[in-house]
Structures are given as C-alpha cells and as structure tokens.
C-alpha cells in the first residue's frame, strides 16, 4: 500500500464545520494529515511561516471573518511558492456565476456544502482521490477543475 500522506489544510471559522470535516477525513482510506486554521488571516500567517510543510490541498471556506476565502485565494495565487497547492473552495452558494468566478480566480475545486455527513464524506473522498491522481500521475494542475 501507499505510505505517503496527503497534507490537508482547512480554513473555516465555523466550529461545527471544522469538526465535521475532521471526522470525515479520519474515515477516508487515503492517509491524510489535517491541519486547521480558523480564518483567512490565520491561514495566510500559517502558509507564510518559515519551514512549514505546505499542504497538498487547501479547503477554503468562502465566508470567513477578517479575511474572506476569495481574498485568500487571490493572495495565494499571487505567490509563486504556493502554485502547487490545490485549492478547494466550499460555500453554501451554488450559483453558476459564483462557481465560475472562483475557477477563473484560480480555484481547482468548488464544493457546494452538503447538509449531511454522508454526502460530505463522499465528496471529500472524491476530491482527495482525484487530487491523489494528480499528485501521483503528474497531471496538469493548471486545468484541474472540479465542481461538486
């Protein structure tokens, strides 16, 4: 079996959501190392900390206090060092326009937040599995788009 871990970073201000995500990741077959930050400012501080292991994949809540997911996305995309991080946006909004806008701004995955745990787990499994394929098969990240 593969022994490599996927490093996941989650930025979300909602306590319940964070717990939800954490639990879902624990049940996924692929080994993940999950770190959590509570808002956009904390996220950018975390990423810029010297010597940290950058996440393979970042889950970004759109609505966060202090600094929104959209602002973070824009900032991250401007920093070359972060170019390999797959960015997953999740939000309660499912408007086609919002989705397309986040993709244009450089997001890789857009998740419409589900209401139940089983669906969330299924979605996260799918995201992590596909990202794993990108990671291990050298697929082109610049055209990695997924909307769930």
């Amino acid at each position, binding site marked *: 079996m593969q022994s490599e871990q996927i490093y996941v970073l989650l930025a979300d201000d909602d306590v319940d959501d964070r717990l939800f995500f954490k639990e879902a990741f624990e049940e996924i077959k692929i080994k993940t190392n999950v770190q959590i930050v509570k808002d956009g400012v904390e996220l950018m501080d975390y990423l810029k900390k010297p010597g940290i292991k950058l996440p393979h994949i970042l889950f970004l809540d759109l609505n966060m206090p202090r600094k929104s997911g959209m602002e973070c996305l824009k900032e991250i995309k401007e920093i070359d060092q972060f170019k390999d991080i797959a960015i997953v946006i999740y939000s309660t909004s499912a408007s086609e326009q919002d989705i397309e806008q986040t*993709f244009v701004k450089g997001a890789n995955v857009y998740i419409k937040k589900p209401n139940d745990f089983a669906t969330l787990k299924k979605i996260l499994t799918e995201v992590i599995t596909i990202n*794993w394929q990108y990671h291990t098969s050298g697929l082109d990240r610049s055209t990695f*788009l997924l909307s769930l």
Partner: protein
Amino acid sequence: MKLFIKYDINKACKKLLEEQLDKMELNYAILGFGEVEIKDNLSAERLKVINNDLGDYGIEILETQKNILVQKIKDAIIEMIFMEDSLPSSKISFYLSEKLGYSYGYISNLFSEYTYTSIENFIILQKIERAKQLITTNELTFTEIAWKLNYSSVAHFSTQFKNATGLTPSAFQRIINKRRTATIEE
C-alpha cells in the same frame, strides 16, 4: 595498528543514500528511516535502473516489482490515450493485457490496490485530461474531440466530461479562456 570504530548505521545509510540520489540527479526528500519521497515522475524503466544501482549498496526499493507494474499500466494507458492518433479499436482490457503480458483480472486488481482508484476510472480521468488539452488549444470542435477520443457521440462525451469535472466542456473552455485573458491583462 588496530582502531576501534563506532558508527551510526542510520547516519551512514542516510548519507550513502543521499550521495547516490544526488548522483542520479533526483529531486528527493528523505522522510524518515526507510522512506524517500521522489518529487519527479519516474517512468517504470527509470525506477528499475535506480533500483539496480542502489542494489550495489544493499539498498532495495520495497515492493518495486508491483509498483513498477502499476507504473507500467499507467504508462500504457497514457500512451494509448495521448500518443496514438486514435484509440485502439479492440477492447481496452484486451489491449492492456496483451501489452503487459498479464491477465486483465490481475492487472485490474493490482491497480486498484495501489492507486485508490480502478483502471476504468483512471482511463476516464486520462481521457478527460486529453480532452482538456484539446479543448484548451481551441483547435478542434467538441464533435472532433469526441470522435478522436472514441466517444460514440458528442453528447456522450459531454456527459462523461460533466460527470468527471462537474462542468460542461463549454463552461470549462470559457473558464480557461477567461483565466488566460485575466493573466494577460494583469
């Protein structure tokens, strides 16, 4: 004169491994004892050569045989989808089994065990990747792309694309084009 030497076996092995991997010009990180992350994508052939070279020092890549075969399966699928002008007309299972010299059942089980996905899903993923490439060059119509990738119709292609990415081919094309325009404007 007789000297008594004490050595740290972990340190010695690590140093030796570093020297060898440096010599092979690999982009790597030693993660812990007995675990190395290679950041380049290695072909099955290259992996075999590395394993052979390291073998001289008593270092062996574990599970190499199976890993190599998995890599070979991936290579064969990618070659089939990307290099050849049109996909083989025989069944893909037959093509792979013929090419690799193992039964399809064996190949398929091994693949699932090592990659967290099935061969079928991997093929779809690669076909969609190829389609994305073709879409972003803006040279072929969706109908031509569907034809090239062996879909029975453009509707079938669009459906599979939507299932795999959540986006229609035209939405995908629009997003990529907008991204490009945005980069040019900046």
